[in-house]
């Protein structure tokens, strides 16, 4: 197990370096002078510009600037914005919002996806299975862009005006965890469909496995064959999928955050791209990639815990 962990950690390092460099390169290849963009139509004072350039290493080659950047990240310093605020203060609170949103989506996804998948697998070939497969088809086909606005209209407005139920806030984060319910469901949409299908195939595959036949031959009651022998094995790919999806959900939250006006990291990123606050953009994407890679790493380790064949490799 120890060697497995070390190997996975070592494998993650080149990916992290490569990805951050790629982002760094893309952003600093942005055409135009960032200082001029910041100043707008005003003339930039050349002395001030020179100090700024020096301070932000704008005169050094890309690779050197990247070196500085990585060095700073290791000390928890994500740099300064042009307005003189540390980038890390901009992160504050915003990451929490996006994380809350992603976690809510993950919970909804796990409950609904695994639930539907289990039903479909156990009722294979019957109408409930066909119905669930049809639902997944439709869920995959509805982009967040569509489901977001439709749910906002139906639950936030229609439901309130027609029944007086005002349980689902559809903008902002003033209502605590309830504020994340609808956005979470919207963000989870496609993932629910994938997880449902994955659960279905995974359980169907384990139900066909020889060891399930053995459990039946041992005279185990049906409930135990399903609950202990089959489910334990089918869970392995599901946990893997869910873990990896946390990173994807956080990275994909930008549209949902825009629709529901959630002050999260996605919205911040979007604004910063427009304002060309490169240090903020690189910082946000770096942290998201970090989360993504770490989530995958944790999943791999979890995998080893769940599957003894890997643990003792």
């Amino acid at each position, binding site marked *: 197990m120890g060697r497995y962990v070390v190997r996975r950690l070592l494998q993650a390092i080149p990916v992290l370096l490569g990805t951050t460099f790629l982002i760094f390169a893309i952003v600093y290849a942005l055409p135009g002078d960032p200082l001029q963009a910041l100043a707008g139509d005003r003339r930039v004072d050349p002395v001030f510009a020179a100090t700024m350039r020096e301070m932000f290493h704008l005169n050094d080659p890309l690779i050197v600037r990247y070196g500085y950047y990585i060095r700073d990240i290791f000390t928890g310093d994500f740099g300064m914005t042009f307005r003189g605020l540390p980038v890390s203060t901009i992160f504050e609170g915003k990451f929490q919002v996006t994380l809350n949103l992603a976690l809510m989506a993950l919970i909804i996804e796990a409950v609904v996806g695994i639930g539907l998948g289990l039903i479909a697998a156990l009722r294979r070939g019957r109408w409930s299975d066909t119905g669930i497969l049809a639902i997944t088809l439709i869920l995959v086909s509805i982009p967040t862009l569509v489901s977001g606005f439709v749910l906002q209209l139906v639950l936030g407005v229609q439901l309130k005006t027609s029944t007086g139920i005002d349980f689902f806030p559809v903008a902002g984060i003033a209502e605590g965890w309830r504020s994340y319910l609808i956005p979470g469901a919207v963000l989870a949409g496609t993932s629910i469909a994938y997880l449902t299908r994955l659960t279905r195939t995974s359980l169907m595959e384990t139900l066909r496995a020889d060891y399930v036949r053995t459990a039946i*031959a041992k005279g185990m009651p049906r409930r135990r064959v399903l609950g202990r022998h089959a489910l334990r094995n089918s869970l*392995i790919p599901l946990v893997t999928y869910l873990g990896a999806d946390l990173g994807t959900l956080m990275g994909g939250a930008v549209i949902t955050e825009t629709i529901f006006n959630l002050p999260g990291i996605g919205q911040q990123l979007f604004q910063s791209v427009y304002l060309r606050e490169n240090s903020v953009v690189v910082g946000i994407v770096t942290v998201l990639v970090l989360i993504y890679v770490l989530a995958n790493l944790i999943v791999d380790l979890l995998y080893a815990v769940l599957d003894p064949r890997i643990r003792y490799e």
Partner: protein
Amino acid sequence: MKNPSVDTHLLPADNLGTAPLLAVDNLHVEFKTRQGLVRAVNGVSYALHAGETLAVLGESGSGKSVTAQAIMGILDMPPANIPKGEIRFRGTDLLKLSDNARSQIRGQQIAMVFQDALSALNPVFTVGWQIAEMFRVHRGMSKKAAYAKAIELMDRVRIPAARQRVNDYPHQFSGGMRQRIMIAMSIALDPEVLIADEPTTALDVTVQAQIMELLAELQRDSNMAMILITHDLGVVADVADKIAVMYGGRIVENAPVHDVYKNPAHPYTKGLLESIPRVDLKGQELYAIKGLPPNLLDMPTGCAFHPRCPYRQDDCVTDVPPLHEISGTRSSACHYWREVLDGVQG
């Protein structure tokens, strides 16, 4: 001894007399597939008495494993279906029992050893857990007592250092040791019938003999009845009392083991015997049965073996041979069994 309060669903152990312990009677099994209906078993009958070992012999697709799975009640239905036949255990037709009653018999009275222990054992549970489960579920034992029993069983099937290995996972054992675990699990509750489905096929030749020896020894010690399913006539001779040879979903020959070796009464059995490598015939070309096993979707008319048969006559193509009784203990499904016995071709 078995605890009667737990075993209420088990079938009674008395009143057997001379009746067989297990009797398969005119069993038919078919599978619905995308290509059509596959008749995997077509009217198979055999009987087994306590303490007896029956070897069921045949190529893959002959229906030998499907018959065994029907006895265990582990066929997936659908696609499988049993349109006709009976499987009587202690006089009761298992096919008429409820699911619950059958699962009480499985593992406790009729147990099974599978071919490939690596896939037949659950990869995410320790071997101890998997053996102990038998005692915990069927006997209501505590975890501790059940593990003690598991270690005892692992000792009994001669797994070295059983106490240390009880918490290991299946993939940490060698193929032979895994098959021993499988056997330990199947004999855990002293079943009356043990079905071993090609128990040595997945193993090295040297290990094969050890496993067969172990099975024979366990069978002698506990007076279990055993059905040994194999495609290899070579492993049968020392272990089995009688042989049922299957071809194309039917039994083609039924006989005490020594009669078969001395003088087979069906051309297929004869072909199988002649294709065993023998020391005394070293240097000669090995005999092989010509042609391919029958396609279950497109069975030959008449006798299923006729396209490959050196004794073939015109009626073999049109008439299905019945199981001719040769003596009280032998029968052969060949129109020309006399010629086969006499070794006269055509």
